[in-house]
């Protein structure tokens, strides 16, 4: 989402803010650069036309409800939720892959013990979903859903199957590049993110309006995982690394220490 049409509801305060009467000091999360996120309206992606709001967004000041958020974790992922190849009696068809990485904030700090949810189609490009009926086979041994928590250093790791590309009806001969959907909470309402992870060198990028809705090419690159030979397991599975960066906090007076720039 670009910020160019945001109407300010109140002026931004400098980091840390001035002394405040109630003494209620809250963290502040930086706004992302324009063009980091897609615009709400992107006509090449037809579904945005009737769903993107027409009115400008109002700026919601970051108050208590915005700087807190659900810390969901313990107990939600089951033992095998991180391994999508072991959720059925048999093994799913397809190329076994390991997808790992870190969840960080914009200051490079790991976000520990945070819930990561993923979903994806099978190796043939079909989702186990009642509305996905294109003529590709379902795999009785693949659901395509994973959950895990990051560890104390913000690491996560899934074992799954290389997802297939799939057709859709957005434009003539439209195909989505292979991708895995990711959902993250971070530590605050401001950090909530749903995104998609892509694979390096996908030949379908050029015609995909979802991928290309991100206007900044450097930001777009951040949606693409990296082949990671150090994680590839011999005679077992290919490794891919995908780090996710959620909005960082502005420095507080305490974190600034003596540095007053």
């Amino acid at each position, binding site marked *: 989402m*670009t910020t*160019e049409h*945001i109407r300010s*509801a109140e002026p*931004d*305060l400098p980091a840390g*803010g001035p002394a*405040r*009467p109630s003494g*209620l*000091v*809250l*963290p502040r999360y930086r*706004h992302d*650069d324009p*063009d*980091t*996120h*897609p615009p*709400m309206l992107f*006509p090449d992606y037809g*579904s*945005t036309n*009737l*769903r*993107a*709001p027409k*009115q400008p967004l*109002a700026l*919601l000041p970051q*108050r*208590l*409800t915005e700087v*807190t958020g659900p810390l969901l974790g313990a107990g*939600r992922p089951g033992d095998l939720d991180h391994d999508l190849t072991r959720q059925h009696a048999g093994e799913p068809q397809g190329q076994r892959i390991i997808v790992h990485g870190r969840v960080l*904030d914009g*200051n*490079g700090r790991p976000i520990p013990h945070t819930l990561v*949810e993923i979903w994806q189609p099978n190796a043939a490009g079909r989702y186990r*979903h009642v509305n*996905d009926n294109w003529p590709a086979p379902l795999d009785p041994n693949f659901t*395509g859903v994973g959950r895990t928590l990051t560890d104390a250093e913000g690491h996560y790791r899934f074992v799954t199957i290389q997802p297939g590309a799939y057709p859709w009806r957005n434009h003539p001969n439209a195909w989505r590049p292979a991708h895995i*959907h990711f*959902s993250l909470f971070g530590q*605050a*309402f*401001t950090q*909530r993110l*749903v*995104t998609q992870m892509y694979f390096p060198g996908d030949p379908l990028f*050029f*015609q995909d309006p*979802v*991928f290309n*809705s991100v*206007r900044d*090419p450097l930001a777009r690159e951040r949606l693409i995982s990296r082949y990671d030979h150090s994680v590839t397991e011999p005679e077992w599975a290919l490794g891919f690394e995908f780090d*996710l*960066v*959620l909005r960082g906090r502005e420095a507080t007076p305490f974190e600034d220490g003596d540095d007053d720039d």
Partner: protein
Amino acid sequence: MTEHTDLTPTFGTGLAVGTSASPVGTAALAPTPSLGSTPAQTVGPYLHIGLLWPDGPEVVPEGTAGAFWIRGQVFDGAGAVVPDALVETWQADPDGRFDHPDDPRGAQSPAVPGFRGFGRSATDADGRYEIRTLKPGALPGADGETEAPHLNLSIFARGLLHRLVTRLYFPDEEAANAADPVLGAIDPTRRATLVARPAPDGLRFDIHLQGPDETVFFAV
């Protein structure tokens, strides 16, 4: 919103990056962060396999005293229901507290057993979502003002490349709503889109993505 109608079939190759538009409050923003954020992408039409939880709509467990339902429908710009959206809610507990380390009053476990603060509901074929919850307390603000009881909502769907954020306020809090600093900054003719309506077993709160009743959405 910027339109990119000049795109050739090779999307994304022909446009200069970096626009002349500046983000609001540029002068006050911190220097460029060391790491750029991961861009958002749509949840797509198949979010249900990944994001639905059996207890998703339950901010509080069944049988919780005082619990009620927030129900509503999501509509698109043609007035059609949106049958593939996900609505999430986040709110304070009835005492106006958060069980979270960044609540400067201190993280406080809610007095209500099982209170999660968070709810998640997909819309059904009629575009309906539902959340069972308790009314949150009012919240102190940094400048001595008070925020009226409210829920923050995130809306995800096919066709939404980024989540939408809105707020739900309570119809029986007229005085508090009138003094609320967020509502007060909204165009008075549109404020009503953020106030739920009474319903037999709780509240009704419809979400209009476009149209004459377009809900006020926020950048947070």
